[in-house]
């Protein structure tokens, strides 16, 4: 079972995402802030991180850079109520960017694509 870490400072969002994604067959762990996020990832070893951007105490785009320094290959789906952060070049380090909506179908689709994503290590031609 794939494990997803949801990082969002709104409890109602964490609960909603957890319930919906558990129904999809994922194991869910949550974090209410970016405090100690790297340690959480080290302990929980998630297969994917769903990361809010505009949190009370942390900027998700800065957290994304921290994740990329230590865990380059973990897929990260940015999830924000605002589409404007797409304009920040830091956001291209994420696998996908989803604008929050009551309909979670796009989020589920991007999570599936991020987990399915595959690039062979090396061409057999070389």
């Amino acid at each position, binding site marked *: 079972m794939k494990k997803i870490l949801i990082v969002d400072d709104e409890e109602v969002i964490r609960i909603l995402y957890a319930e919906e994604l558990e129904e999809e067959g994922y194991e869910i762990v949550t974090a209410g802030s970016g405090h100690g996020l790297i340690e959480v990832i080290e302990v929980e070893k998630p297969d994917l991180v769903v990361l809010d951007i505009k949190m009370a105490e942390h900027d998700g785009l800065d957290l994304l850079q921290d994740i990329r320094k230590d865990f380059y290959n973990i897929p990260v789906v940015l999830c924000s109520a605002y589409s404007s952060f*797409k304009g920040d*070049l830091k956001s291209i380090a994420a*696998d996908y960017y989803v604008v929050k909506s009551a309909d979670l179908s796009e989020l589920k689709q991007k999570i599936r694509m*991020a987990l399915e994503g595959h690039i062979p290590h090396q*061409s057999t031609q070389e």
Partner: protein
Amino acid sequence: MHIEENPHDVQAADLIVGIPSYNEADIISFPTQKASEGLVKYFGSKNSVIINCDNDSKDGTREAFMNTPTEVPKIYLSTPPGVTGKGNNLKNLFRKSCDLGAQAIVVVDADLKSITPRWIKNLGEPLFEDFGFVAPLYVRHKYDGTITNNIAYPMTRALYGRRVRQPIGGDFGFSGELAEIYLSHENWTPAIAAFGIDIWMSTIAMCHGKSICQSFMGRPKVHKPKDPGESLGPMFVQVVGTIFDMMIDRCPFWKEVRWSKPTAIFGFGLGEMEMPPPVDVNIERLYDKFQAGFADYGSFWKEVLSANLSKKLSEVKELSLAGFEFPANLWAEMLVDFAVAYKHCKDGKQKLMESIIPLYFGRTCSYVIESEPMTIQQAEELIEDQCGVFEYSKSYLLNRWFE
């Protein structure tokens, strides 16, 4: 065979800046100076050299380069008289890089007007941190780089799974190890010897499992303006032909790729990005050239395209300029059909490739109309959406390629 001038008798180098050129006497001094400043400022402890790899230019490019005052030694390399092509220049650079035992090679265009010393740092530094290939990341005007935006970026991303925004940017860095791989490559086509070299190098890096990063340049790419009507045809055929050649060559790799992954980023924290200068596009001319393509290639396209795509194309033909739209999914699947036709084509590849150009004008016209009211950032999102369409069309590619 090549011509070499090495007045400082440089026999070894850790880091090389290569500047390919052909008749760039009026401007090559500027990037040469900035390269020297960058090497001194950011790589003072490294043994560096600047190499101009030229096509035996007759306009004084060699003199302009060699007479540029620099703290870093310089070497002039040239192809023999009559031999042109950017790829041939870079092949000389690969060879020289191997001879000098370089760990890292940075390449910048000879006609760059916006290069700063920091470009050398950003393209070179990741190569000393275990990256094998560094692609540039700069803000471009929404109408600049339409071959990149509508073909090279979405196709390489969908095929090889790496999101490299500027796979034919012209400015890049690569490791000495990768230079050896490039040099040893046997399938050296006339297109690779010319403008196909950039996409070829990017694709080899992607397929070889080399760690790739994109580096923020901080400034937009500003270079000597070229007349697209004059230079587009050969460049288009060489770039897209190389993409198709690589599809045949690298099929075992790309058929295993699913979706795409972000590429590592280097050079955050450069502050505000400078906006690029405006680019004028003549929409009417693009539309007219698209329509003219039906007279030249209409029946030929019906042989290449599936019946369904031919029907959709006929519908697009009937649209007036005011309501013109060439959908991204139609464009993506058409390129698949052309790639499949290219794979099976024994004679007439040149005609096949040239016949794509009016369709490319049609797609570009549609993109320009759609993005006209958009900011550069909004247009960027449009390109990202198009990439998603190309990734979704991968299943169509797999079906058609192996049928």
